[in-house]
């Protein structure tokens, strides 16, 4: 199994009382609540954590993109990736991912990723996402055209990497007289592509297509939904006539390991509740702007996740549903093994820092996960 150490870089010094006077920690959260001095410390801590993951033996380290939010401090994840290239030698660096439809010039994304791939001598994993619904409020991009723009931007970027330039690109949303990516990617023909997703059927089908076979990475879901979505991917691949490898399937999950289940819960309980109760919740008008998913998909999501943002989930609920893996090494190993048995997943993206979890506990958590859990899956 391959392991990725991933962080969202939440702004931990957030005034939670002030935050809960707003409808969301996204888009409308006044930025006077951001203190640049504390924020600078946060960047330093998180970059140190990710660099340390290489020493601990992780295969990959991961960052991602979110806008106008205390949930994650990386509107430009490539900047962090660039810093991490200078701090590491071996690990792959996964940008999970860039939100393609939000860009009015996806060629910039192709160019920046190609630069990172060269600067790291082929250590880039390229993640492509659409951004979450709130991002369409944050950028003004019309969510109705989100899918069209995603597919078109994807085609443009992959062509820019793989097709001899210069060539002309003719799209509905993007048009270029000259596409001629300097530099070309270091990895030939191109870097690996991962597609983080919350399980929409459109994305499953698209990622599993034999011409792509992208890693489908399920994020922020209960064990039941992760199982359902990964198996939907497998079923889809079989319908396309092939058996997907375990590396085509990924599971992104908050993880906390301590000596005992009780201690793990005591140490991580407040932090996991803050992730799901303070940072993540959005009213559905923000999370699902019109057209962001198909109408049928939107109705399904609204039913499946009807409680999202309304009820503050407790640590016990998050643990019991398998949305977070929190417990002793034996417990966490067992839950991962069970997911492997149910789905064949072979890529685990661990969030070992989440919510307000402080640096000291994060460091111990990373060390314990690396020494007590990871080796078990290396056989």
């Amino acid at each position, binding site marked *: 199994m391959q392991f990725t150490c991933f962080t969202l870089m939440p702004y931990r010094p957030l005034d939670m009382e002030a935050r809960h006077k707003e409808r969301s920690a996204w888009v409308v959260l006044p930025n006077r609540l951001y203190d640049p001095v504390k924020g600078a410390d946060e960047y330093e801590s998180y970059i140190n954590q990710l660099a340390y993951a290489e020493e601990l033996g992780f295969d990959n380290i991961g960052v991602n993109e979110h806008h106008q939010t205390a949930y994650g401090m990386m509107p430009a994840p490539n900047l962090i990736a660039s810093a991490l290239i200078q701090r590491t030698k071996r690990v792959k660096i996964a940008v999970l991912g860039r939100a393609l439809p939000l860009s009015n010039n996806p060629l910039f994304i192709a160019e920046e990723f190609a630069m990172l791939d060269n600067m790291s001598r082929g250590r880039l994993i390229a993640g492509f996402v659409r951004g979450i619904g709130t991002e369409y409020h944050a950028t*003004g*991009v*019309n*969510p*109705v055209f989100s899918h069209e723009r995603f597919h078109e931007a994807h085609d443009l970027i992959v062509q820019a990497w793989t097709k001899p330039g210069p060539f002309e690109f003719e799209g509905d949303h993007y048009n270029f007289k000259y596409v001629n990516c300097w530099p070309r990617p270091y990895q030939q023909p191109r870097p690996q592509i991962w597609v983080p997703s919350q399980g929409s059927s459109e994305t499953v089908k698209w990622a599993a297509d034999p011409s792509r076979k992208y890693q489908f990475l399920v994020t922020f879901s209960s064990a039941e939904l992760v199982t359902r979505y990964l198996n939907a991917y497998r079923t889809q691949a079989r319908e396309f006539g092939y058996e997907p490898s375990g590396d085509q399937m990924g599971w992104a999950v908050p993880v906390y390991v301590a000596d005992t289940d009780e201690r793990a819960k005591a140490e991580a309980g407040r932090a996991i509740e803050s992730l799901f109760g303070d940072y993540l919740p959005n009213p559905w*008008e*923000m999370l699902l702007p*019109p*057209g962001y998913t198909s*109408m049928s998909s939107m109705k399904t999501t609204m039913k499946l996740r009807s409680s999202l943002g309304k009820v503050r989930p407790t640590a016990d609920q998050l643990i019991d549903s398998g949305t977070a893996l929190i417990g002793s090494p034996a417990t966490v190993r067992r839950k991962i093994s069970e997911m492997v048995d149910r789905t064949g997943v072979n890529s685990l993206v661990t969030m070992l820092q989440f919510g307000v979890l402080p640096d000291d506990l994060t460091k111990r958590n990373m060390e314990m996960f690396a020494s007590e859990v990871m080796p078990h899956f290396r056989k």
Partner: protein
Amino acid sequence: MAPPIQRHKVRDIEARMMRAGSGAPLLFLHSAGGFPVWTPFFDKLAAQYEVIIPEHPGFGDTAGPAWIRNIGDMAMYYLDFLDTLGVGKVHLVGHSLGGWTAAEVAIRNCGHLKDLTLIAPAGLRVKGVPSGDNFIWSAEESVRNMFHNQKIADAILAMPQSEEDMDRALANRFMAARMGWEPRWHDPALARWLHRVSVPTQIIWGANDKLFPSVYSEPWKQGIPGARVEIIPECGHAVTADKGDACAATILSFLAGR
């Protein structure tokens, strides 16, 4: 009483349509809220005119084709619609998104129009005076922010919603975003062509509009030659429901004075 539902077909679109009353034809283009409920406001218009209310493509029960991608496509569709309706020239009345659509029709071709009534139309903006964000408002805010008279909002919020109502509301929301998400509820080109509106025009606005503040009426007045503006006091964005009687009287008086 609500008239029976008819359909009017233009190319691959079969629009749901209400038609009632007799007299000169009055075409009413509805807001982003969707195909309207028949209210006393429409009875008042139908007492003197033949009121025709089509549902916009993509809204409610009227399937929308992929080729309607923006407000310009919607306006061109309504020019086709007017070509095929076969009633001669109409009094064109539009509310909010429907007002914007009516204005986009008028700058392209006034040939089918007798006159133009725009009720709190989208389509123009006033820099420095932000519009309300009806895409971020909750369901309750969306209702409350439409009305000055909160008793109407209370009554609407108390009404049960069927599965079909919710499907229609979702369709309305999708098509509204297609038209008005970006640039938000306006067309930068429209202001450049308002001088082409060559029929008598009345602009009606609620003084307490929380979506498009009533000062938005000013660029319309400045842009359309001879346009007159009526501001209805104690009235929100949903003018035809919040102050239905006053709105109908304002429209009828304008049409009668011609």
